[in-house]
């Protein structure tokens, strides 16, 4: 009994640490004022405005390819439409990078590297990091070539983050559907497990094997 408990507990603790919450290897946490965190989370209310703010403040250097948003000089280029007719809204990366090579290279000359595409950045960094980085890039990544374009505009930054969240993550309705699917699946499996157990008990009793 003790052995069973011991081995079960250390196994569960081990997987808890490795898979859920590694208390031994904490990663940096960033802070964000609660009011702006709420804006950044509220995709339904602010993603649309956030996209406009993105186009005004960020699109000169950054693309969001998964939303068919390309850097401003490319977006204005009539070649883009022809390419999209052939390849779809979201251009394959190598097509985009070769056709618009000059646009991207001129950005590289100004900044030292091509500013990254931001389609999945919300998942990679999270809203707190993005909030801090966009408002003061040098504080988070000293020496970075990202200019401080949103100084003193925390609310608009939060809205841009809401837009980035809407591109990277599924919509709130879709998320709701997935929660339902999950609950249904797990409930089904638990019920099946219990039924099988009871059923087996009955058969074994009848066979005199229990």
């Amino acid at each position, binding site marked *: 009994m003790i052995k069973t408990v011991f081995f079960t507990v250390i196994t569960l603790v081990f997987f808890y640490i490795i898979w859920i919450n590694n208390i031994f290897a904490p990663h940096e946490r960033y802070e964000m004022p609660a009011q702006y965190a709420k804006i950044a989370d509220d995709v339904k209310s602010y993603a649309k405005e956030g996209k406009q703010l993105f186009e005004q403040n960020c699109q000169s250097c950054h693309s969001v390819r998964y939303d068919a948003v390309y850097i401003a000089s490319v977006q204005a280029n009539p070649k883009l439409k022809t390419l999209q*007719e052939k390849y*779809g*809204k*979201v251009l394959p990366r190598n097509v985009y990078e070769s056709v618009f090579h000059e646009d991207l290279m001129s950005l590289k000359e100004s900044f030292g590297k091509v500013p990254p595409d931001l389609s999945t950045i919300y998942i990679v960094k999270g809203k707190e990091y993005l909030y801090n980085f966009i408002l003061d890039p040098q504080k988070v990544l000293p020496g970075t070539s990202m200019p401080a374009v949103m100084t003193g505009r925390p609310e608009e930054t939060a809205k841009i983050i809401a837009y980035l969240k809407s591109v990277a993550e599924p919509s709130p309705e879709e998320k709701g559907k997935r929660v339902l699917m999950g609950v249904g*699946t797990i409930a*089904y499996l638990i*019920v*099946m497990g219990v*039924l*099988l157990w*009871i*059923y087996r008990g*009955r*058969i074994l009793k*009848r066979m005199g094997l229990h």
Partner: protein
Amino acid sequence: METSRRDLMGLAIGGLGAVGVLGVLYPIVKTLAPSAASLAGATVEVDVNSISEGQVRVVSWKGKPVFVVRLPQGFQWNGKTKEDRNRKLLQGQDAYAMVAVCTHLGCVPLWKPQGEAEYNYPVFHCPCHGGFYSPWGDNIAGPPPRPLYIPPQKREGNKLVIGEPGFIKELT
């Protein structure tokens, strides 16, 4: 008493098991369904003014090539056709779309506004086996058995929206 309870359980488990199998199959089968992006490709908009009068542009709709024809003002055409289904359907339209697939064996016909061979007025000519169509896609001569297909389409000001029912309600 005991036997019937066990059978009921057995039935319940079997039934739920079948439900489980369907539950696994459902998302797998659904992955075969068209994605949102390709469903969006189900309509194509063309700005009629961007086509010169008397010219034809080829666009892609649902994976097929489609002619967008813009007729000049006061266009007259007196050629003879074997059928005139299309002309009747497209009457009064100065711009319209037709599926650019020859109804004989599937090649893409060519627009010949200066005429071709013995026809000295605008025709579509299919180079594969010599089919001829009127500007409205009605078959004139050669192997094509019927006029070109016309997709559902509607006109919104300067835009021709192919794929949505309008002056043509459904694919002919």
